[in-house]
Structure formats: structure tokens, C-alpha cells
């Protein structure tokens, strides 16, 4: 431990980059400007506290769910189809859209990843298309498809399919980018073609993620149904909006709880499946 001999070999402490503090500074300034009356939205803290009373009424009703409302959202019968109602429709729309959307997203993701795409332009074009698909919000898809095919669950499903392709293909392509490339080299060295390489060297590596993303998309679809109904694209959103118009917050509370249960169950399944696959 002779400091005299090793001191000369120690590197000088690198100068700290200013990028992080400057970045944080800019972010704070923009946030403050956005809040201010003159430049931004004029956030009035006093107003929030003053009006808090109105919210209290709603909150009280939300905390007191009207369980008698459940039959309006879901009906059971002894004959097929056994269960019906807007909540069931929401669930069915979500599962159909998740299935089709995620199935389409799988090959799209491989075209959008540098690791697996046949060429550079393929990656750029696929990513460009995916950006556009994702830039359009689900409610806008729903409005377009309602105009095109009329009201009902069909335009809702179509809207959700596009939404799912955008989300799942993006997440999956980024996962594919980070995959272990060793098996890819092995597949190439063995004379396999690109499709075979993707199927056997890449897919097994990303399968748990793909399942998780698909279940996440399914979950988002269940939640999206609340807004899809507003524009006539089917599901529980229509009922929710009617109850909101009545100010029937105890009924809305039931809908929220029902959606929470569905989302929670999906989450449980997701955790189980991932544990089995990883």
C-alpha cells in the first residue's frame, strides 16, 4: 500500500457532465411556466380547496356502491348464452381484440427489430407505420370505425385491434432487439433460413415477454371499453356515461369495482403464466 508509487497511475476524476442538471432545470422551468396564469393553464390551488366540497358528495357515493345495480351490467340465465350484458360485451370485445391484435403484432415485431428484419429499410418502414398506428388514440379509431361500420361492438373491436398492434409490436420489437445473439449465429451457421432462425433462436427467448405484453394489452382493452362506449363503439362505456349523466355515482362505483376485478384477475393469470414460462 504505497500511495507514492500508485498515485501517478490513478486517473483524474472526470469532469461531471452538465447535461443532467441542465436537463432537470429546463424541465422544472417548463413545468412552472405551464402552471402559471400568464403562460400556462393557470392552476389555482385555492380553487381546488374551495371546490373540494363538490367532490366530497361524489366520493361519498362512490364509497357506497349500489350492489343492486349489478344485474344491469351482467345477467345470468339457464339457457345459452348463459351470461349477457354490457360488462360481458366489454370482456368479449377485449378478448377478441387482444387475440387478433397480438397475433398480427407478432410478425410485425420481427420486421420492426434490427435483429430479425431482412433489411434496414424494413425496420425503418415498420417502425414508421407503428409510430403512426400508436399516435392515433383508441377513441379516435373508435370514432372513425363507428362512422364507417355503424355503432356496436364491431367498431370497438376494430379500434382495439389497431391499438394492440401498436402497443404489443413496439414493446416486443424492443425486446427482440435485446435478445442473446449467440443462438442466432448458431442458426445461421447451421444453414437455417431467416424464418427458421426467428422461430427457433429468437421466439423462445421472447415468449414470456410476448405473453406478458399480450395480457397487458388485454387489460388495457378492458379499461378502454369505458371510453369506447362514449362514441357508440360497444361495451360498458355507454352505460357508464348514462349513469354519469344521472349523477348516479353509486352505480358507477359498481362498474369501477367490476372492471377492477377483471383487471385484477388478468394480472393474477399474467403472473402465473410468466412464472411457468420464464
Amino acid at each position: 500500500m504505497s500511495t507514492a508509487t500508485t498515485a501517478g497511475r490513478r486517473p483524474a476524476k472526470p469532469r461531471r457532465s452538465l447535461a443532467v442538471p441542465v436537463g432537470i432545470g429546463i424541465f422544472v422551468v417548463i413545468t412552472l411556466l405551464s402552471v402559471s396564469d400568464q403562460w400556462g393553464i393557470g392552476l389555482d390551488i385555492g380553487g381546488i380547496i374551495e371546490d373540494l366540497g363538490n367532490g366530497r358528495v361524489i366520493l361519498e357515493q362512490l364509497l357506497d356502491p349500489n350492489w343492486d345495480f349489478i344485474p344491469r351490467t351482467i345477467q345470468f340465465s339457464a339457457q345459452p348464452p348463459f351470461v349477457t350484458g354490457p360488462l360481458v360485451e366489454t370482456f368479449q370485445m377485449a378478448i377478441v381484440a387482444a387475440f387478433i391484435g397480438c397475433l398480427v403484432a407478432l410478425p410485425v415485431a420481427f420486421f420492426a427489430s434490427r435483429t430479425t428484419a431482412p433489411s434496414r429499410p424494413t425496420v425503418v418502414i415498420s417502425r414508421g407505420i407503428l409510430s403512426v398506428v400508436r399516435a392515433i388514440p383508441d377513441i379516435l379509431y373508435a370514432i372513425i370505425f363507428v362512422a364507417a361500420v355503424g355503432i356496436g361492438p364491431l367498431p370497438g373491436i376494430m379500434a382495439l385491434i389497431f391499438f394492440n398492434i401498436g402497443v404489443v409490436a413496439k414493446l416486443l420489437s424492443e425486446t427482440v432487439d435485446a435478445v442473446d445473439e449467440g443462438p442466432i449465429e448458431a442458426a445461421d451457421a447451421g444453414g437455417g433460413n431467416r424464418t427458421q432462425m426467428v422461430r427457433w433462436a429468437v421466439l423462445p427467448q421472447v415468449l414470456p415477454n410476448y405473453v406478458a405484453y399480450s395480457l397487458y394489452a388485454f387489460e388495457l382493452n378492458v379499461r378502454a371499453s369505458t371510453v369506447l362506449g362514449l362514441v357508440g363503439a360497444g361495451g360498458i362505456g355507454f352505460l357508464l356515461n348514462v349513469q354519469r349523466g344521472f349523477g348516479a355515482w353509486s352505480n358507477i362505483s359498481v362498474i369501477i369495482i367490476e372492471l377492477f376485478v377483471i383487471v385484477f384477475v388478468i394480472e393474477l393469470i399474467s403472473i402465473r403464466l410468466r412464472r411457468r414460462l420464464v
Partner: protein
Amino acid sequence: MIRFEKASVTYPGGVHALKDLDLEIPDGQMLVTVGLSGAGKSTLIRAINGLVPLTSGDVIVDGVSVRGASTKQLRELRSHIGMIFQTFNLVKRTSVLNNVLMGRLHTTSTWRSLLGWYRPEDVEIAMQALERVDIVEKAYVRASNLSGGQQQRVGIARALAQEPTILLADEPVASLDPPTSHVVMRDLQRINRELGITTIVNLHFLDLAKVYGERIVGLRAGELVYDGTGAAADEGVFRDIYGRSLTADDMMGKPAAEAAAGV
């Protein structure tokens, strides 16, 4: 037969990994290439199956020019060249058998491989390959559950499942402990002798090279600096190849001597 004809590889950035290399490897030979890291061993091996493209010259494998090969011809060429890697390159999340079946992709139609419907005869070939490296009992085990030595034997089985005429092994034992290294090297030697598969192995431990190399080729900065039998390669030769005197780090150690006595 593999023939290098003034083969050169220059990587972007100006590194000359291979310089005007002339080399002929007859069928059935067990060739070991030695050299420091960066001497061009990996590049030499990957030039044979076209994983690294040549910048000039050519490599002729069984009469086929690697440099002039189309994508289709290259796939055809690669289908009978098995390859073994330092880090095994297995898909760890899937079964040993699925990994070995990757060696059958070249004769399996795309739709069959997409569905995973390998023909029974291909599964049989994969099983026999696993038997040859004595690990068939692990066929349905996930690759990630195997030890390093076992994983490398699966890597060898995958290469054998191609029913290759040439076997390329890029530092196959660099990630393994000394006893396991000898098991793997003996597997390669046995495969070379019993099946007559031309085998080219990169090694950086000199004692291993001497024991297993029927012929040793020394590379230094992309150039051929030694070409002779393993027996003739003495310390002076290795000093030449390495461009410095040898140290204990260049030897795997004692088990090599024991293995030499046992072989």
C-alpha cells in the same frame, strides 16, 4: 478439402484480421489453430462458412467458392459445416432436444419448422447425436439447467445433427474448467476419428493444442507463422507464434499431461 487462396479480411476501422492467407486442409484432418486473441483465429474459422465475408482472395470449400456464393448457395454450404462456439450459443429457455433439432433446420421445410413438426427421422438423428456425446438422458431438460460442460456437448450434438463433413470449433473450451475441457476435446477427437469429419479447432492453451492437434497452424496478426505437426511444435515454435516468451498462463496445466498419458 478446404483451400484458402490469398484470403484477406479487413474489418471496418482498418484491422487486418487475415492477411493473404494460403492454407490447404485435407479431408478428415484435425487441425488446431493457435495464436493470441486478435491474431485472426476466429476470423479464419468464420471465413470457412461465410459468417465473416472476405475482403479479397477466396476460400474454396469442397470446390465451392465461399466468396462468390449466393445467399442460397451459402446456406447450402453451411448445412454441411457444423459449428461449435465458445459460449455454446444454445437457446437456454428451450429443451436440449429442440436445440439439437436446430441442426436439422436445413432439411426441414419452413412450414414444418414453424409448427415444430420435425419429421421422425430428423428427431432420430438428433437423438443419435446426443447419444454420441453421451448426454441423451437430458434430451427433454431445459438447456439452462445443464452445466457448462454439458451445454457444450449439446452444442456439439447440434453441430453433429447437421451430419456435417466439416466441424468448426471456435474456442470450444475457453469457458470450461480443465477436466471438462479434456472431456470436450476428447469428444471432438473421437468424432474426428470415428466419423472422419474434418475438424478445425481454435485453442489458446498450448498444451491442449499439442495433445489434440494432428496439425497445428500458428497465426500472428493475421499471418501464418507456423504450420506443422503437434509433436514438432516445441516451446520455441510457440514463442514465435506468440511473439514473446511463454508463461504459465499459456498452459491449461497439469491435467493436460495426465490426459496425454491417458490418450
